[in-house]
């Protein structure tokens, strides 16, 4: 369905088929030890340059991409700056075309605006990887989260994952919704009606189902994993906020084997109690970070080959 040239981009997990998703995850699994520094780096991409075009500041993601590029043997350069294309006075496309003209092999793009990577991909001939665009998608975060679950469970079919918080404004949630449902998992979107509109229930086309639930207590016993999103304090009234916090008491009601996830950085005591986030029997939060490097290596490898 997607032409070969377009295959080198990763603009989102929306529209990425099961086979392709699995091959990226398999690749990331193989690259895991190298990503973690337990095996020597590769020289698959010697002399090739990956440019991190970060129009918004998200240092952990940028560092993760830099580590991933270096472990593949590629060089990485950063162009950072904040603000939208309008306030910059030049178009993001101009910036991307300028950097591409220097001969870089791939552009890793993060932006406060939805769709920036897609617009750049339509204009340049090198590969473009979305490192997070506004409220749209954050596909490498989603892949890392999914890899984490796959390492625990193998097959995701029939598993139930709750994503809790401000779903409407979350790019992490959108990527997870697409990726998880494509692999056959069911997703419950949990949060107050103001932040989890019912229209979100229909955005995915995968075999897994998406349901919208406005009560956290209702889902605790039903899920195989629960992913808490970072809360934006201003978005929810304090009393509503606590209704969607994963407290110690709520965590006790989870199934014994249920996993606790968070894309980071954690607001301890806001969306999740620190005892829960730090509970090594359930929490896979650090695993998500480590897997982030592995999936970014897999994505870059695919784009550079």
């Amino acid at each position: 369905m997607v032409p070969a040239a377009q295959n080198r981009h990763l603009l989102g997990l929306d529209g990425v088929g099961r086979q392709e998703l699995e091959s990226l995850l398999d690749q990331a699994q193989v690259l895991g030890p190298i990503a973690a520094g337990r095996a020597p780096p590769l020289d698959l991409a010697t002399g090739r340059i990956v440019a991190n075009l970060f129009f918004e500041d998200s240092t952990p993601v940028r560092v993760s991409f830099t580590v991933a590029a270096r472990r593949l043997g590629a060089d990485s350069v950063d162009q950072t700056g904040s603000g939208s294309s309008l306030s910059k006075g030049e178009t993001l496309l101009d910036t991307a075309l300028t950097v591409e003209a220097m001969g870089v092999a791939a552009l890793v793009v993060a932006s406060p605006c939805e769709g920036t990577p897609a617009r750049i991909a339509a204009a340049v001939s090198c590969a473009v990887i979305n490192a997070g665009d506004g409220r749209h998608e954050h596909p490498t975060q989603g892949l890392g989260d999914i890899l984490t679950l796959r390492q625990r469970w193998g097959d995701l079919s029939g598993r139930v994952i709750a994503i809790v918080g401000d779903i409407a404004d979350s790019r992490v949630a959108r990527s997870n919704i697409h990726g998880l449902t494509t692999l056959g998992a069911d997703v419950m979107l949990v949060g107050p009606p103001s932040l989890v509109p019912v229209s979100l229930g229909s955005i995915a086309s995968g075999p897994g189902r998406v349901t919208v639930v406005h009560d956290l207590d209702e889902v605790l016993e039903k899920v195989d994993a629960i992913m808490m999103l970072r809360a934006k304090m201003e978005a929810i009234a304090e009393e509503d906020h606590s209704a969607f916090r994963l407290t110690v008491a709520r965590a006790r009601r989870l199934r014994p084997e249920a996993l606790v996830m968070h894309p980071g950085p954690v607001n301890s005591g806001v969306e999740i109690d620190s005892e829960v986030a730090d509970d090594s029997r359930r929490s896979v939060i650090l695993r998500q970070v480590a897997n982030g490097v592995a999936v970014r290596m897999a994505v870059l490898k695919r784009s550079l080959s």
Partner: protein
Amino acid sequence: MPAPGCGCERQAKIVGVTEVLIQGGRVLDPASGFDQTADVLIRDSVIARIGRVSPPAEIRRIDAEGCLVAPGLIDLHVHLREPDPQSTETIATGAAAALGGGFATVCCMPNTQPPIDSASAVEYVNRRAALVGAARVFVVGAATLGRRGQQLAPIASMARAGAVAFSDDGACVADARLLSMVLRTVRAAGRCFMQHCQDPSLAGCGQVNAGHMAARLGLPGWPGEAEEIIIDRDIRLNRAIGCRYHVQHLSSGESVSIIRRARSEGQPVTTEVTPHHLLLTEDCCRNYDPQAKVNPPLRTARDIELLKEGVADGTITILASDHAPHPLDRKQLDFADAAFGIVGLECALPLYKAALVDGGVIDWQALLAMLTINPARLVGIDSIGLGSLAVGGPADVTVIDPNLDWTIDPREFSSMGRNCPFAGREVRGRAIATIVGGEVRMLRESERVTA
């Protein structure tokens, strides 16, 4: 209806003495219901004869065999962007674009820089348009000062200067008390009020239709309800006032039933629809293509269905392009930063045909009524003979080849705007001649003329 000394009269005077014979076309005049194969003889800027004409030896002829011969088309919703220091369009390029699309008359919106909110600004545009001498240009004046929605604009004096209607287009007159003052004043001036229906508290930051695509793309939604609420409220406010009230660029299918009900009660309510709202859906925004970014936003297939029903049953009586040129660098931005708007003058006609005639919604006679006599009546320019074909009336004529196949290529537009999501679309039907006040101001196929 327009006051003496307004631009239209001046435009009529610059026409030279000419004779033109349009031969053998199917002459369609929706105002009178005339529909016959006939010749049209134009002399001294007026229509001299419709019927069989044995041509004098020395006369300019346009061979219209296989073509439709219609009153000069009217588009009552365009943005000519003059005055504007950025000049993303000028009256010259916009009025030339109108001729290219078959439009002999356009009404330009007041969201210029500065806005057209004074009698002198109305006179300025009329004077510029007369000098350009392309399509006729009538001015829609701002309803509030600076289009800021806080204070009445000098509506009466602008009307005297020739403004044919009033609107804050691009912005909704949202304040109910101010709106009722606008409606009273516009009614007293004998004009029409055109509302950009968008509740700013509901859709102020909206980028795309609220629903599936907004959820998927993570963009703020602009729900149809923001349009419906304003229409509903305005009709209620206007009930005791009785101003001619016109809804611009209708986008939501639900709005159709609100307007249908008001019209059946005899309220003076009309509405228009654009080519893009009849043909394109929110799916066009899938890849964040800013060419599909328009206000109000593209909606769903269901909305299109209901809009077409509204056209079929006569609820929607006017077609308008909302021609909105923007420079490339205002469109080559992130979706959220890019300008709203689509250029339409040069491709509107075949798109209307594709949506409505090819789709069996209405026939050519009804389509042309929506492009001629209906808009002429709304803004009162039927009183000077525009929008119809009558012997002794002004010779504004559009000749349309309904079977001409062509591909929309914005690079060939006379408009300075290239922002068109229909680029590359293959269409059938095109204006081949646009005659304004007896002057052939656009002729597409030179081989059709014999001296």
